């Protein structure tokens, strides 16, 4: 599904990723943990193609193609979805318009027929229900005036409607209370179908109680410094990150 080799990236003149290797197979769930400033969020943005995130070395192959050569929207259309840590507010553009534009663009590039208004509405309502967000949120401006938890749930709605192949969740759990976390986790779990892959970027082990990962990686200093199964996350929760950083140093 995804193969990252020796990835180096810089942001605003600072080297953040320094030789990151990671391989993700179909249907796998990978958790990437690490201390603040280790480059976790940078990885998500580099994969999604955010302007200003400059890849200086290495390669990323996604389903056999060079991901880095693709434009931001091409990546999205080919099934890479990034759930933002801080979803962007777009006043004046309704959530509905936004979702329809997005779903149409992605389906069109896949060669699927555009959804008619009734079907689309039906799916959007279902997604709202799954995300536990009232349907009137579809009429409001994109994320406009939403609480932190509502924004994260709105990301989940988009993920459900776009049916991506690779879901990158950037600190989706931060700032969520337990109830909201459970809703998001349930949504993510419902999308696990044995083919779709997930990368969960998180600072806390808590999320992994609800979404069980196949692999856990620790990112520090811009590289994966340790990989293991979910027991690694429990170790980290108990001992913090300092011992690992010391060990690496």
């Amino acid at each position: 599904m995804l193969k990252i080799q020796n990835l180096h990236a810089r942001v605003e003149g600072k080297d953040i990723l320094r030789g990151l290797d990671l391989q993700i197979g179909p249907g796998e769930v990978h958790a990437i943990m690490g201390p603040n400033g280790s480059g976790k969020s940078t990885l998500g943005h580099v994969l999604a193609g955010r302007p200003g995130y400059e890849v200086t070395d290495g390669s990323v192959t996604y389903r056999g193609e060079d991901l880095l050569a693709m434009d931001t929207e091409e990546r999205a259309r080919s099934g890479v979805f990034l759930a933002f840590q801080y979803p962007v507010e777009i006043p004046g553009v309704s959530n509905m318009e936004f979702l329809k534009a997005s779903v149409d663009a992605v389906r069109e590039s896949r060669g699927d027929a555009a959804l008619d208004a009734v079907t689309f509405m039906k799916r959007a309502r279902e997604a709202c229900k799954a995300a536990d967000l009232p349907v009137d949120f579809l009429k409001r401006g994109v994320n406009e005036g939403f609480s932190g938890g509502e924004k994260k749930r709105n990301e989940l709605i988009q993920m459900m409607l776009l049916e991506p192949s690779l879901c990158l969740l950037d600190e989706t759990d931060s700032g969520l209370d337990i109830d909201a976390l459970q809703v998001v986790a349930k949504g993510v779990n419902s999308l696990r179908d044995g083919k779709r892959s997930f990368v969960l970027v998180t600072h806390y082990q808590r999320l992994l109680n609800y979404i069980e990962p196949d692999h856990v990686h620790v990112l520090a200093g811009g590289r994966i410094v340790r990989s293991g199964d979910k027991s690694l996350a429990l170790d980290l929760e108990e001992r913090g990150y300092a011992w690992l950083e010391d060990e690496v140093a």
Partner: protein
Amino acid sequence: MGFMEQPLAEARAPHWLQSLQARGQSRWSAGKLPTRRTENWKYTPLTGLRDDYRVAAASDVAPAKLPDALAQGLGGTRLVFVDGVYQPSLSSVELPEGLQLCRFADASDAQAALIAEHLDTLVGGQAEPFASLNTATLRDGVFLHVAANADVQTPVHLLWLVRAADAPTAISQRVLVLAESGSRATVVEQFLSLNGAEASFTSGVTELKLEANAKLHHYRLHEESGEAIHIGAVHARLERDANLDSFHLALGSRLKRVDVVVHHAGPGAHADLNGVYLPRGDEHIDYHTTIEHAVPHCTTDEVFRGIVGDKATAVFNGRIHIHPDAQKTRAELSNRNLLTSTEAEVNTKPELEIYADDVQCAHGATVARIDDLALHYLRTRGVSRDEAEVMLSFGFINELIDGMALEPLREYLRPLLAKRFARDDTLARHLL
């Protein structure tokens, strides 16, 4: 021939307005045209004005067809003018109870008395030569009279079509609205070029008088295109507890300049003043707004937004003037601009002039391009860059469109604006 010489010579106000007209003529001839050194005209050159504008004779103006988008109408009374000449065949006058509407030319004695009493009382002075010109070249006008406590639900739609097919045409527009105490009404002023319109100069003045506790929804839409020049003004006076909701839109043409002046004359008055300007090509749009807080306890919320592309220029000047003793005033103004081309230009100046201390006043202005982060967010959802730009431009303006009270007008404007942003229709498909 000099600028407006023929229209001045041909001015034909009704006889009971002729002394007013004479005053306008003497004010106009005593003043001089503003230049770039005139503070109020610093960013707007008048070099496009021609010397050969002529008033269209009624017999020259062939009846036109209404544009398709307007055929359905806004669901109320409609008066239509073509090149300034009234077109009964395109108009439909159904007056609900409490509403009187007439042209100055057709005014009854009682109406004439009211017009003579109120007309030209909110404008004038050396600072506004074009308002003097309007009075000086007055030919006809529209008088809208809302009776006390009348609650008029349907809008009054005043439409000026610009055809100017044969020669550079001078068009005079004059409106007086008298909303008596406790009344409610809606008036839409719209200016629209018909296809192939040639050079024209429209001089517009609208006076809105809101008596105590009156509520007026006012819309002024400038959709003239091509070589049209419009220099117009809207002056409103609000008595105690009156409420004005005024919305302005300007799509470009060679030059549009609109001065909006709201005078809070009675405590408790409130004004919402919103506007959108969208010049492109080499168009020039200039809005100058002034809010006069002359008495205590009045409030104003003003939002103007513009998107300026190609080689176009936008000028915005938003002045809030708090007079001495106008305590407990609250006035806020926001002006945001998107600049979408390296050859476009925005000049904005929000002004506060405050002579009372117990007031809450604030203004803000920004000029930038479309937010990079929002653009990126849309692209990560698979939306193309071009479509994302259209959606974000539309969204920027749509916040104001959504706030409009008159639904048929929203329905009219949405596709109009969506199409304007999307030069290719497919890019607007999700907005329509």
